[in-house]
């Protein structure tokens, strides 16, 4: 539920001062009408206190009941009712108390003459308070709704990103396990090494779920691990080249972004030709972008890479769009029989820049 405006200390101070000022003004007016100072002070103090209490009452009451949009005129009636009550209370309390015979101005007569003005003022004050409260509560409600909506959107986005990151191909895992199974018989040492590598790879995969941005250097290490495992499987025809400019190593990029691209390149390269395959990965800092290129050979005779980027790349495009709200950060091009996938990460993006990122 929305908090009452009077729960904030600052509002209470303003509220109190407001009525104090009105009390002073009223005292001044009453003195001008020739009332004695004590009478004037008591009158304004009492009536303004009652008024303030009524305002508190109405404001807190609206916490529980807020008139709907088409029932805003209820406010008028409520305010009028409360103003009448206020004036009646003042009359009932003040007249017997402050009426002393022999005063220059007869207080009872003065009150009878001034009650319409008192009622008007009370009505205006309470009415104002009502309207302010309605505005306050509506905006609180609106803010809560927006918060909820944002939360829902954020959750949906996170879920989607999580799903997109979870593209660890079961093929890769099962084939690696099969390789290990084959190695155990004849080359147990190598089998053990591969188990180690696979574990490191899987551990990295798990850890990165909650750590969204990681330095390029870490991602490259992780890729090397992945490529090492692939080389055990396809060692006879897979080789890799890793080429990066040292200045981009510290920049951060979304975790698990490059691996599906490399995976795609390997799949593309290895399954589209029967020859040896070289996969190149290059990272450069160009025009304020971290530009990472993954190159794989393909057979232009049988493959049409331009038509549809394949699932691996579609999910990367989607992730980049969710993160940066830009559709142009993933590009592919063909140079003779090479297929080149380029990812660009804006280097001045707060989460990407090592100097701007406060690492918790």
């Amino acid at each position, binding site marked *: 539920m929305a908090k009452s405006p009077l729960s904030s200390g600052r509002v209470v101070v303003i509220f109190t001062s407001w009525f104090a000022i009105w009390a002073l003004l009223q005292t001044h007016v009453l003195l001008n009408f020739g009332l004695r100072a004590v009478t004037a002070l008591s009158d304004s103090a009492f009536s303004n206190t009652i008024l303030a209490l009524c305002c508190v009452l109405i404001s807190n009451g609206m916490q529980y009941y807020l008139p709907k949009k088409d029932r805003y005129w209820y406010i008028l009636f409520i305010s009028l009712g409360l103003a009448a009550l206020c004036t009646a209370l003042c009359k009932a309390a003040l007249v017997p108390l402050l009426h002393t015979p022999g005063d220059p101005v007869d207080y009872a007569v003065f009150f009878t003459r001034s009650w319409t003005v008192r009622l008007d003022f009370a009505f205006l004050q309470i009415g104002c308070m009502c309207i302010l409260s309605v505005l306050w509560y509506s905006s609180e409600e609106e803010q809560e709704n927006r918060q909820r909506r944002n939360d829902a959107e954020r959750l949906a986005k996170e879920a989607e990103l999580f799903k997109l990151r979870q593209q660890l191909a079961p093929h890769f895992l099962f084939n690696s396990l099969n390789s290990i199974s084959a190695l155990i018989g004849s080359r147990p040492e190598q089998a053990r090494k591969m188990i180690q590598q696979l574990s490191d790879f899987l551990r990295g995969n798990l850890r990165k779920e909650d750590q969204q941005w990681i330095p390029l250097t870490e991602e490259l290490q992780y890729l090397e691990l992945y490529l090492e495992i692939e080389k055990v499987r396809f060692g006879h025809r897979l080789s890799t080249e890793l080429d990066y400019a040292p200045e981009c190593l510290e920049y951060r990029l979304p975790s698990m972004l490059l691996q599906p691209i490399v995976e795609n390149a390997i799949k593309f390269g290895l399954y*589209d030709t029967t020859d040896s395959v070289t996969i190149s990965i290059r990272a450069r800092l160009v025009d304020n972008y971290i530009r990472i290129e993954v190159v794989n050979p393909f057979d232009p005779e049988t493959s049409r890479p331009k038509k549809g980027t394949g699932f691996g790349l579609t999910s990367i495009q989607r992730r980049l769009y969710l993160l940066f709200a830009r559709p142009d950060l993933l590009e592919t091009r063909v140079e003779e029989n090479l297929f080149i996938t380029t990812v660009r990460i804006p280097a001045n993006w707060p989460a990407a820049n090592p100097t701007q990122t406060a690492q918790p």
Partner: protein
Amino acid sequence: MNETNSTQPSQPSSQRITAALIDDEPLARMIVREYLQSYPNITIVQECNDGFEGLKTIQLHHPDLIFLDIQMPKINGFEMLELVENPPAVIFTTAFDEYAIRAFETHAIDYLLKPFSKERFDKALHKWLDGYKPEPESAAAQPAATNPAITNPTNTQSLLDTAAESPAQQQRVVVKTAGKIKIIPIEDIHYLEAADDYVKIHTHNGAFLKNRTMGYFEKVLDPTRFVRTHRSYIINIQQVTRIEPYEKDSHLCVLSSGAQVPVSKAGYVKLRSVLGL
């Protein structure tokens, strides 16, 4: 050779069984080779890195049994099998392929999900070996390859029919032409024409024959892109340049290559609905 011999059926030692291993991962072949060591009567005639080598080996050595991976370079295991005239018995070895598993469940001799145990391997092999046990004498007397129970062509055929519905295979057609294997991306196909027991696939670099029926292609090809306009013709609608009236009830479809393809009355209705006319 080892203790596991007790789990094997009694096979006449005179009966030689030949096998080929077709898998692009050397280690995956290695484990099959290792497991096969306990079957002294099974000889590995060849290990193949891909479907092309597999095809050559099958034509050259006619193995009784092949261990076949599905995901392989250039042409996958199913596509390779399509090109074999009398396919041998097949035991698939694959890591994870939901679609393939569905296909196996109905038709295959067996499939081994990598990584598989020796026990599972033995079970698959015995399933096949037991297949020709009913007449051990006659089976022993004749070469294994001629025994219909082993090659089991109907099973392999229905397996291929099911596998052909997998998404990968709807993207391309693999044909054999003059001893060479050609992969035709389906967007390159202009039209298909029935030719006796074959289907003639017309593309911009020539026509190729494939040992399939029109009904098969009609089922496999994407119906929003390919329309059977006639009993003997299926056209790629992206190639259509115009449709002209021909005789009283029929039309003629002119393709961008200039080829003219007959359109029957029923075919015209189908073509119009696909083209949104």
